[in-house]
């Protein structure tokens, strides 16, 4: 397995009384950009929770860095699905980014130059230097996502888990943020998994796609996974993948039954 950062064999996810998905096999290497798509409730966030060690696999094996996931692994950066920070929060962005690095340490050390410099660099890395001293509470959705990204990157992780960073963003901000994430993935060799609702804006950047729906998981290159044949074979019902002349795709046939087992 050596070269892969994440490996899953016959992996099943869910809770004691309910399997969300099963029989998933995938392997992701260093520096890969992977989109995780699928309907609401299909188990995309559950995958992240397992990778973070917050939830155990129901079945099968899941390995990160050739070991089972463990909670608090500093080599994983995580941006949870969130809306906005309370608009009354008058704390500068730099502080949150700095806490991304040293927030776990006990004791009082607010003036560490090392932390400060790392936080400034992380903000630069996501093109958000000008936001450093702005209060968190007044940022727009796109600006906040950059700060969260810097917060996740400041500890120089090898894996980045981004849960719907593009929701609530308009088209231009969505494109900007995606370019930023893509450049982080390429320049730092980070393996990024990004949960999204719409695959289309991601397609130019992706190495792999993970399609989770109806209790099953399809993983591979977008051109291989997102075809009528492969999805129909996986789900056993007729699935249509439509493409427009610009290369945008639409998946039809599985989403009506989302949440149910096939």
């Amino acid at each position: 397995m050596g070269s892969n950062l994440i490996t899953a064999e016959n992996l099943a996810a869910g809770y004691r009384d309910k399997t969300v998905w099963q029989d998933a096999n995938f392997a992701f290497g260093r520096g890969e950009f992977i989109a995780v798509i699928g309907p609401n409730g299909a188990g995309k966030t559950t995958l992240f929770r397992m990778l973070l060690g917050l939830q155990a696999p129901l079945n099968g094996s899941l390995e990160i860095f050739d070991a089972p996931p463990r909670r608090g692994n500093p080599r994983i950066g995580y941006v949870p699905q969130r809306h906005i920070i309370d608009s009354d929060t008058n704390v500068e962005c730099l502080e949150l980014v700095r806490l991304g690095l040293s927030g776990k340490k006990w004791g009082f050390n607010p003036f560490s130059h090392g932390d400060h410099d790392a936080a400034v660099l992380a903000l630069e890395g996501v093109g958000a230097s000008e936001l450093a001293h702005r209060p968190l509470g007044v940022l727009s959705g796109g600006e906040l996502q950059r700060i969260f990204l810097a917060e996740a990157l400041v500890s120089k992780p090898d894996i980045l888990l981004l849960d719907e960073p593009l929701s609530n963003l308009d088209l231009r901000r969505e494109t900007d943020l995606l370019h930023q994430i893509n450049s982080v993935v390429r320049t730092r060799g980070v393996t990024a998994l990004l949960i999204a609702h719409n695959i289309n804006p991601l397609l130019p950047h992706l190495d792999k796609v993970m399609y989770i729906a109806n209790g099953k998981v399809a993983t591979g290159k977008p051109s291989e996974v997102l075809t009528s044949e492969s999805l129909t074979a996986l789900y056993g019902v007729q699935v249509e993948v439509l493409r427009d002349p610009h290369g945008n795709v639409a998946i039809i046939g599985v989403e009506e039954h989302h949440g149910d087992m096939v």
Partner: protein
Amino acid sequence: MTFCPTGFSPNIFYDLQNIWCYEFMRNAFETGTIIAIIAGVTGYFVVLRRSAFVAHAFSEIGFAGASGAILLGIEPIAGLLAGSLLGGLTIAALGRRATNRDTQIGIVLAFTLGLGLLFISLYKSFATAAISILFGEILGISTSDVDLTLVAGAGILIAVGFLYRPLLFASLDEDVAEAKGMPMLFLGTSFMLVVAVAVSFAVQVTGVLLIFSLMVTPAATAQYLSRRPGTAIALSVGIALMATWAGLFVGFYTIYPVSFFITAIAFSLYILVRLARYGIRPKMATQVSKRK
């Protein structure tokens, strides 16, 4: 017994000499100073975590404890501590989002306040005790109370210093902090207990009902003044000290209660800062209100 002059003069040094001539005023200044510091520090996190209502609940649960203690003939502070620590543990045990359970907390604190009333009425000969617990009695603090407050204050500062970064992180970004494997239940419980102890001692100065004036108002004012937590905490302490010292000073020369002056000064500073900020940055103010 030494002779202590009482008249007010425009010379503040002469006045302070007069005031500190009295042992009860020295005790009041010493206790007030310690409490302003711990209330300013813990208050910052109370405001940041939106736990102001919880802090208030502690003080009212503490009221039942204190009046119960008086009924049993024990030191009121023991009852206050027992009541608010019990309240803190209960709220922490209810779960991480418990601080937002306004309804449940309100129901419990109304009941405990009623319980306190019952205890006080059972102990008829000591009705003034109720007033002093409800509104504070900083002028009646003994030298041994000062020592106890100093020990508790030092303990609180050490605890907050130890918890500082994880607590700040968990307060700003709970989801990421939890995913990073930080002990959220331990953090939440420790913080609740620190606040419970801080509230119990602060009640000596402000009373149960006016606890906001030191635990919340200075910290809320400071958060408008600085975006850096360290600076904001220092400012919060500074404002709490200013309100306490000025309140004691004015209270000494008038017949009105010290607690009133402390609350009035803290409130005036808050209003001033909000007005000033609104004047300086009207653009940002509208941006903030739009996003609510």
